């Protein structure tokens, strides 16, 4: 299992990596911007991408749209602090995200996503 974590904050990337590696065995790669995310998607060929909604241009939604058009297999989980806004859920799910992980991130939510997507199976 290869997981790509895209977030502009080092703290958040480390936290996500720790949480995910505590519940499943995976190789991790990190990216800080939209362009780096696309670059790493090409080189690292991840099975799962954890993608922040707000990153440097192109932003999370744009990267989501591009990736879901060029790669039908990759599972994209969006993370966002704006999880109370319904339109963000709609935007993400309509454009191919498989799940949304609200910030601050809890182990409980990570476990839910890992189980729902059968990542540990």
């Amino acid at each position, binding site marked *: 299992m290869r997981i790509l974590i895209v977030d502009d904050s080092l703290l958040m990337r480390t936290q996500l990596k720790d949480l995910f590696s505590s519940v499943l065995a995976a190789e991790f790669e990190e990216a800080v911007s939209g362009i780096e995310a*696309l*670059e790493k998607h090409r*080189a690292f060929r991840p099975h799962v991408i954890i993608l922040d909604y707000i990153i440097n*241009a*192109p932003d999370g*939604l*744009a990267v989501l749209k*591009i990736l879901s058009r060029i790669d039908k297999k990759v599972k994209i989980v969006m993370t966002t602090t704006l999880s109370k806004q319904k339109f963000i859920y709609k935007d993400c799910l309509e454009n191919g995200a498989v799940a949304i992980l609200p910030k601050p991130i809890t182990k409980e939510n990570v476990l839910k996503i890992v189980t729902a997507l059968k990542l540990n199976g």
Partner: protein
Amino acid sequence: MRKVAIDQLEEGMISDQTVYNDQGLILVASGVTLTKFIIRQLKNFDIETVSVKDEADWVLEPNPSASPTQMTIAAMKDITDEIVDYRAIGIKKNSTAIEEIVSSALDVPFVQEFMGTCVKDEILFKHSIRTAILSTNMGLIKRYSVEHLEHLAICTLLHDCGMESKFKEDDIEHPFLGFEKLRKNLDIGMLVALVCLQHHEHYDGSGFPFSFSRTQIAEFSSLVAVVDYYDRLLIKNVDPRKAMFETIEKKNKRFDPNMIELFGSTIDWSRIFTIPTNIS
């Protein structure tokens, strides 16, 4: 030509085949000089052998890439003069720097290949070069680093590479086709592919193919969008003054206001009423 096992590849050898991975991505194109990075990539993708050119056939073979590069540099001189004389865009004081930057962009094998194929279509060939000159000039004014400027020049030269070497005014497929082509070539940075994908996106979200807006569009994409639009007007034989105003008018609608301000600052306003009308 001889086959060499992956462990015996050395820096400086020249590949004689195009190597793909199992998904059809190009890992290394034929004629490319191998670097440490490329060899590591090949190992990562479990490639076992690669055909390389023998030193002897490399010396005997005339360098096929020299001609598109030379043609581009020759055309660049004419186009620079034309811009200075008839377009009232102040590039004269930057012209040496522009020439150096665009020439170094031509070192990229894929750029040479593209210029070699599009030379058959004069409009596309000149459009690529003219936009590259204009965007590099804007980049110099914005004081990008040399590395960024080279990248910008590559982005602009290749922005219409999805057009299959024939300029078509109303082709809405070419951004995505070009993006796919560039993305599959590991020699090309993802930013170049992204600019190709996004150069018809508008600031207000009315563009194509994804209707991206504002923060969804990379900085270089919005820069290239401005010079591309301006040059397309000139191709349609619009008066150079009118083309400028038409471009500037679209600030905040079609174009990023910062990029329009930057474009405006390249115009030599003192000469704008002395340039002749309707130069084809």
